[in-house]
């Protein structure tokens, strides 16, 4: 009975993680074909197809998409961290307001994701609130191009992923001993020096965790760049979509997905190490 119980999570892992992953890996080594599904597996006669993975390495279009996605994810994670450090520490020290502030950070999760993106579009578009306000104040007569820019994309990304960065910093900050900063000041450290030499080093594992917790999912983000970003941005999510649904080249799309996963394995392992260390 106990053995059977232990099988259940293994079964779900196999069904929901291992099987799809194996299928994607298989498709990456298959041939594009007419039909449903539109690919021919290696055992259909043509053998293993090495061209899909080779194409990724050789065609700068795919390579750039991967690199640009990592850059956007890195920028998103860095911006989130910049906001999360003061927020996490302040919430941890907020005393009886702590729960209220924490709930406020999590509040966006209670509204639909697309509704929040829609709200940004409503704010940022040419006839949106911000441009209308600027025109009403007489500061501009031409609408500022806000929507469909890198800035709008990063804004949407930071907005969506910020809670993932705040929570680990907050959790680590609640475990800090407030007396340590006092001890540092007692020994002659200015409050700023006490923060930099005592508090910040103790938060470092949580900062790395927060960065990776944003970076890893943000690297594959599709919806936010698509709805808020510039039309010519070739991020890996968009290229994947195009290959799957427009070119119907499932093998190349699968190879791209495998490549993204391979790039993220390093950070994922790092994140798990940090989790164990903390």
């Amino acid at each position, binding site marked *: 009975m106990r053995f059977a119980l232990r099988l259940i999570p293994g079964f779900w892992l196999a069904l929901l993680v291992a099987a799809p992953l194996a299928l994607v890996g298989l498709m990456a080594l298959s041939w594009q074909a007419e039909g449903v599904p539109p690919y021919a597996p290696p055992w259909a006669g043509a053998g293993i197809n090495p061209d899909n993975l080779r194409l990724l390495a050789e065609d700068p279009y795919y390579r750039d998409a991967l690199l640009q996605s990592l850059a956007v994810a890195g920028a998103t994670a860095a911006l989130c961290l910049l906001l999360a450090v003061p927020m996490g520490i302040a919430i941890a020290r907020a005393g009886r307001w702590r729960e209220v502030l924490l709930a406020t950070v999590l509040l966006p999760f209670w509204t639909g994701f697309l509704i929040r993106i829609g709200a940004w579009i409503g704010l940022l578009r040419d006839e949106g609130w911000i441009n209308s306000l600027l025109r009403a104040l007489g500061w501009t007569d031409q609408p500022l191009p806000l929507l469909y820019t890198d800035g709008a994309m990063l804004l949407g990304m930071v907005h969506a992923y910020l809670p993932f960065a705040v929570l680990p910093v907050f959790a680590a900050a609640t475990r800090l*001993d407030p*007396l*340590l900063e*006092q*001890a*540092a*000041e*007692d*020994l*002659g*450290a*200015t*409050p700023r*020096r*006490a923060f930099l*030499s*005592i508090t910040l*080093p*103790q938060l470092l594992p949580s900062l790395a965790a927060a960065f990776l917790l944003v970076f890893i999912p943000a690297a594959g983000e599709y919806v936010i760049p698509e709805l808020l970003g510039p039309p010519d941005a070739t991020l890996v999510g968009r290229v994947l979509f195009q290959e799957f649904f427009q070119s119907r080249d499932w093998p190349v799309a699968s190879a791209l997905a495998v490549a993204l996963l391979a790039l993220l394995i390093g950070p994922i392992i790092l994140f798990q190490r940090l989790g164990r260390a903390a």
Partner: protein
Amino acid sequence: MTPRLSLRGVTRHFGTVTALDGVSLDVAAGEFLALLGGSGSGKSTLLRVVAGFEAADSGSVHLDGADLAGVPPHRRPVNMMFQSYALFPHMNVTANIAYGLKREGRPRAEIAERVAQAIAMLRLEGMESRRPDALSGGQRQRVALARALVKRPRLLLLDEPLGALDANLRERTGFELRAIQRESGAAFVMVTHDQSEALALADRVAVMDRGRLVQLGAPREVYDRPATRFVAEFLGAANVLEGRSTGGGALECPAAACILRPAAPLPEGATAIALRPERIRLGPAIGDNTAAGTVEEAAFRGESSLLLVRLAGGALLRVSHAEEDGAPPERGTPVRVSWDADAVVPLLG
């Protein structure tokens, strides 16, 4: 001579609670002062006011004649050893001890030399590269002490320095603390709730109760001549007996059914006296300062036994019976108790 530390009328409120109520006291250079009191007595708040973590609502704090009002903690030539030690968990022993010297901007060679001296003085050799979580309680305590002492503070504040140690380590560490204080020449102000610690270590003991300083004096003086009922009961758990003045310099105590006659005539207005358990003898006596009762409980405590004696007037007297005086009487035995006149200490509040 200017005192090292001088407090005048220091008062601090937290909301409606008065944590410190007009505390005035002086600490001489090289003196070891113990602030003794229960929880909520204000002793820790007083320490935090001197360290600069709390501001006094009124009153003044002077160090060697210089007013410390408005001086932030990091600019006070005062160091504190925290009750939890507050060692930096991400730094090893050496880095913890060197931290304060680095903030002073001392040259590297001087820092290394002074840290090595502190490590030798507190017998921390071999621990240099360990982090606090790899140290025992006693070692952590010594690192905390070294970290504060290495700055050569004019005044060292110690918040329950022995409180987190095992009982068997406490006595030895107390003697070490005393030796280090003499060696360093710094003035020590130690907060403790443990009366035996205060009496054993300090040159003078300041007893605090509900934010007030109730008695300040040498350990023996505070112990032998408690000024108030609180001091008498807090230090050594003295018996406190109440009564009416006989007019002849003695106190008539109905609860003890006897006359309590102090060595010097009872001061005007005194209606209670303190009587230490170890000053009470068993055995017949005549006249004043003797009473009859029955042993209600007897508890063996090693070098002595504690007897609870119910007196004829209803009062319950704690009597310490030394082992060398033979086996203590059994429960239910009728006894006579007596004491010397100089054991009767009039209380003034």
